[in-house]
């Protein structure tokens, strides 16, 4: 049987969800027998190829992240969101109640340790969106594994459900928002 093709992206987040995935310990050996990773921070492959499952960690806070997420959606059959950032906005969304220019000024100029700071605006740096959004506010998302980060066992549960041909919904006792 051909391996299930998976691509993962790491948007506005801390990589904790990917770390939590690697924390599934020895289960990763069995998984590697049936799953093949293409683009992912784990493989360091940058190109998108068509895959069965796309996985997104992180929220969407700038134009590049929006583009990457749309591209992932276009290349995958099923899209899964990992972690509170991708599911709800998470820690990154703390800036959403402020004006983005105020947030930049606070970060680059007004921080207590900053001397003569200035907001970097070189060409090519993606622009911030007005608000940080969860993945399903940009593209259609098929399933979710919330948690900050999700428990390894929740990630494994969701992957196994997908491998069994079912769309996973975490049972209440695996649900976590922190």
């Amino acid at each position, binding site marked *: 049987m051909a391996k299930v093709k998976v691509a993962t992206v790491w948007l506005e987040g801390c990589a904790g969800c990917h770390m939590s995935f690697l924390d599934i310990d020895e289960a990763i050996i069995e998984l590697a027998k049936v799953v093949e990773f293409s683009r992912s921070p784990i493989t360091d492959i940058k190109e998108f190829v068509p895959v069965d499952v796309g996985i997104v960690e992180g929220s969407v806070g700038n134009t590049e992240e929006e583009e990457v997420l749309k591209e992932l959606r276009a290349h995958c059959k099923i899209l899964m*969101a990992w972690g509170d950032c991708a599911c709800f*906005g*998470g*820690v990154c969304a703390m800036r959403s*109640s402020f004006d983005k220019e105020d947030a930049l000024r606070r970060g680059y100029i007004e921080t207590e340790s900053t001397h003569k700071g200035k907001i970097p605006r070189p060409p090519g740096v993606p622009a911030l969106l007005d*608000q940080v959004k969860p993945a399903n506010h940009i593209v259609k998302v098929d399933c979710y594994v919330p948690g900050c980060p999700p428990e390894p066992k929740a990630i494994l549960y969701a992957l196994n459900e997908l491998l069994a041909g079912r769309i996973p*919904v*975490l049972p209440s006792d695996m*649900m976590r928002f922190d």
Partner: protein
Amino acid sequence: MKEITLTINGNQVKGKEGDTVLDICQANGIDLPTLCHYKGLNDVGACRLCVVEIERERRPVPACTYPARDGLVIHTHNEKLEKYRRLVLELLFTERNHLCAQCVASGDCELQNLAYKYQMDNARYPYSWPALPVDSVNDYLVIDHNRCILCGRCIRTCDEIVGVHTLDFGYRGWKDMVVADLNQPLGQSSCISCGACFQVCPTGAIFSKNSAYKGRPEECKKVNSVCPVCGVGCQIEALVKDNRLVRIDSPDLTDKRGILCHKGRFAPLYRKHERIDTALVKNGRGKLESRPLSEAIDIVAKRLAELKSRYGNNSIAGIASSQASNESLKAFKEFITGTIGSKLIDTLDGDIYRATAQGINIYQEKAGLDTETLLEEILKADCILVVGANPLESHPVAGSYIARAARQNKAKLIVIDPAQNAFSYHTALWLKPKEGKESLALSTLTKAVIDKGAKKDSAQVKKITASLKDINVKQGSEQAGIGADDLLEAAEMLSKAKYSVIIYGEGILQHKNPGLITSLLNLATIASSQGAGKPRIISLKPKGNSRGAWDMGIAHTSQSIMKNLTGNNVKALYILLSDDYVNASQLPNLGKGLEFVVVQSSYLSSAMSKANVVLPSPIWAEVGEKYSTLDGVAKSTSRLIKPSDDIKADPEILREISKHMKK
């Protein structure tokens, strides 16, 4: 109450008239999700999670506000209702900031628990991200409006249970938010920092500064105890982790003595004064230095035995703080009057006790605090007289009872106090007699109530009437500095009352004047002669265990030893402070003849400067002991945390010294 029968989910269930649909569901084990509902509060139907379908109703209705009727057919769980409930949760999560990873309440949040239960793994609606303020001006509490779901529990608790009604909704519709008074910062409002709002908040919108991130409830040990701080004797449930107090709650806010105030709920989480954790002995250069406890006990025993044999038993005096527990006080009494055999024993509030006892003695043949009533009587009152007391500050839970009676029973609240009083807006009438004229004001008021027509059949009333026959109401009120109209209005309120209660405190007690106490008892007798029962009067005593110390007879009724201390007869003084923070200015003047002073205390203070030996005391949370409430109920505390190794319970140290002295 009439019994009614309803059909819920196809089953016949019974309830009684007056129940809500939610009451009946809960009584029958039907689990409906709720957020704005809280036991003991009036329901308002704010959160819409308990929606149920009732046949013949056009749309789902909240079970918490729907009165149950005979014959209703109700469906509580079906696909449509569960869909609605999840929708409500998603709307709540997207309205403000409910990102749990940044919240103090995560892991102890009712909103979060419901989202888990409903497997809410995403939110479909756009977030509104209002930029709402965070109010951290209060000493103990923070209100983060971004976490608020506007359930109104805090508002209803503040009003219905605490009676203060600081919190309410401000603004309208989209801009609706919880505000204190007219949108003041909480720390500058009429808030009494009782923390009940924090206890009932289902999310992290109201949290305690010194509980945040110290441990989740499931990581903590729960210990039930009683707060001995002010003498009201409120029930507490302490959360303890790693021998540290994480949080103190009320086990049941609606229960008897279940409200709590900042002194019981928050103050124990802070370390305000430096603790004494080893014995201290004055060295050759006159400085206190840390010594092993056994050595210090030895020195105390030796010196006391020496002075006792040289100058006699009554050369040694003992003074205790009435904050000490019954066990400590009993051991202290045994030590001073037994081991040492001295008659010179007193409490720091002994003079207040003597004045009270003498005042009662003038009023009736035998002196005794059984003339006083229970605090709960306040809740039944239709007229409350607060004299020389500021209960919302000194005994806040008693203050809550008064505020509740005034708000909920429309009890008339009359304050007689020349000083400022926190009851400003609950008060129907505020009489401000001139300093020193309180007794005259009370007697004149009593006379005015008699003139309104008191029942003069009892001997006591006749006696009081006769004693006041020379008082002219108009002249008396003028001399006392109160307008005659105000005084007559107060008399009118008291004479019309069916159930009046009089509360007095510090402002009266500080005068140490027996006459004032008699005047108050007279007034209570006259005021209650109209309505039902015996006179109802309560004194808010100075210390947490004043009643225990007084009942135990630590303070003699006849003589004050405070005055004797300055004479040359007293050579040694043993001061037991326990966990009362007392500084030098609060101690009586110590005579020059004193050769040896022992202070047993939990906290370091200027009082130690007079000591030759300082012995450590545990604080109340470190021992399980008995205290008497100000209205005379004995209550037991539990040990919440362990003291450090060198700290022994007061009775243990006293018995140890005793043993050494007898050797």
